[in-house]
């Protein structure tokens, strides 16, 4: 349970980190919060030769709320994002997802961008990024690119980041006015990885009728599974056609059995949590709409 030896690097700027990543290529690994990487190293499932610790790069410790986005720097901790009221006011789904990430103690150290790069199919924040059409900003010593969530999560523990690249930030798009969201999951013990989890985002019109809806599911695929469910909205926009909703979910998910849940039970959870999350999101959209009209 001790990591194998590695060479430690402590850059103080993004440029310095990028030069180190460029110099070490495949051997270089970025350390952010380390809440997934350190146990992997302790169990010797990962043994990077060079560890580039970005925790001392002040310019990466940022959370910015703009009219269109919430942009999260690479070493902003989950707990900071969760507590930020301006972030919650802009995108409630961020806090709704974050409170499900492990335990508060893990969130004190773990970073949101690190969780995205780690790309665990059971992780919440990849689903949140996907639901919100977010992007991850990747930089090398001489290039910058933005990768959309749809292209970023390539498979289990596999993101689009390449050797030499540093994920400097992630941007989450603010949903339009009249939107509501929810994130629900079920795990065997509090703070464990979910057997299934569902994030939902609905948009309503001035009459509180649902005009569009989507969900992203975790633990039932190789990464976050985005399902557009607008076509399952029932006629008046007051709810969803449940059989149609189940069919849409079943078309996209791949429920696998493990020690915690059978495939059948996972599929059942996917159906139930999808409906509940959409209902909760709709209720919140309604409340948001009412507040808006009163204002």
């Amino acid at each position, binding site marked *: *349970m*001790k*990591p*194998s*030896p*590695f*060479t*430690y690097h*402590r850059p103080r700027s993004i440029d310095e980190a990028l030069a180190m990543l460029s110099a070490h290529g495949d051997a270089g690994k970025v*350390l952010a919060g*380390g*809440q997934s990487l*350190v*146990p992997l*190293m*302790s*169990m010797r499932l990962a043994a990077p030769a060079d*560890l580039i*610790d970005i*925790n*001392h790069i002040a310019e990466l410790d940022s959370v910015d709320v703009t009219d269109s986005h919430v942009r999260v720097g690479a070493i902003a901790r989950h*707990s900071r994002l969760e507590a930020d009221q301006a972030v919650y006011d802009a995108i409630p789904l961020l806090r709704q997802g974050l409170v499900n990430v*492990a*335990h*508060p*103690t*893990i969130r*004190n*150290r773990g970073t949101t961008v690190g969780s995205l790069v780690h790309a665990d199919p059971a992780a919440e924040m990849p689903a949140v990024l996907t639901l919100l059409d977010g992007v991850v900003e990747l930089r090398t010593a001489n290039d910058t690119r933005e990768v959309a969530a749809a292209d970023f999560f390539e498979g289990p523990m596999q993101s689009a980041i390449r050797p030499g690249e540093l994920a400097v930030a992630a941007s989450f798009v603010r949903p339009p006015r009249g939107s509501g969201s929810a994130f629900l999951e079920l795990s065997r013990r*509090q*703070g464990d990885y979910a057997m299934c989890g569902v994030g939902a985002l609905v948009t309503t019109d001035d009459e509180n009728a649902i005009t569009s809806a989507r969900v992203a599911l975790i633990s039932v695929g190789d990464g976050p599974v985005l399902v557009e469910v607008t076509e399952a909205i029932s006629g008046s926009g007051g709810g969803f056609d449940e059989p149609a909703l189940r069919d849409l979910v079943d078309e996209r998910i791949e429920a696998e059995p493990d020690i915690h849940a059978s495939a059948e039970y996972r599929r059942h959870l996917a159906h139930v949590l999808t409906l509940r999350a959409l209902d909760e999101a709709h209720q919140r959209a309604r409340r948001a709409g009412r507040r808006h009209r009163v204002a």
Partner: protein
Amino acid sequence: MATETLVHVSFHVNGTLHELELPARRLLSDALRHDLKLTGTHVGCEHGVCGACTVLVDRAPVRSCLVFAVSLEGARITTVEGCCTDGGDMGPVQQAFQDCHALQCGFCTPGFITTITAYLAQNADPTAEEAREAISGNLCRCTGYQNIVAAVQRAAALRKATDRTRRDPSGEVSTGSTTGVES
């Protein structure tokens, strides 16, 4: 194997500055126990699940088995040894654990003490449900948690009583630490 390269790191532990030369792979939990001989921090699962090794880094609970010591340059760390009163007596959380019989074997206790100490600094008066949520990341295999939840609320009451006795005549709460946690 060749001798590992040592990396310099300096951080405060319980108010004392330490300058250390450590192998980069030294976990904070091992640095505390083996290099600084602060054996109050217990190592259970060593992969972040059990919570026994929880310490405070810049006042926030962190798993010391999930952090490399060299990554904490400049940090202010508080271990269970620092959760006492300024005079070295048991702090309110420690006292509450004794009062409520919130430990049996005691192995998990340091992680609970640090976690609860930080939690009460943010939430001075938790309900039983909030107390349960606050300790949800810490495992205890002896007590069944009932007495630990009671101890969280008892500690909250003890802190409030201590605060009252420390108020000066103007009614201001003293800024002095009652928990050993550096502000």
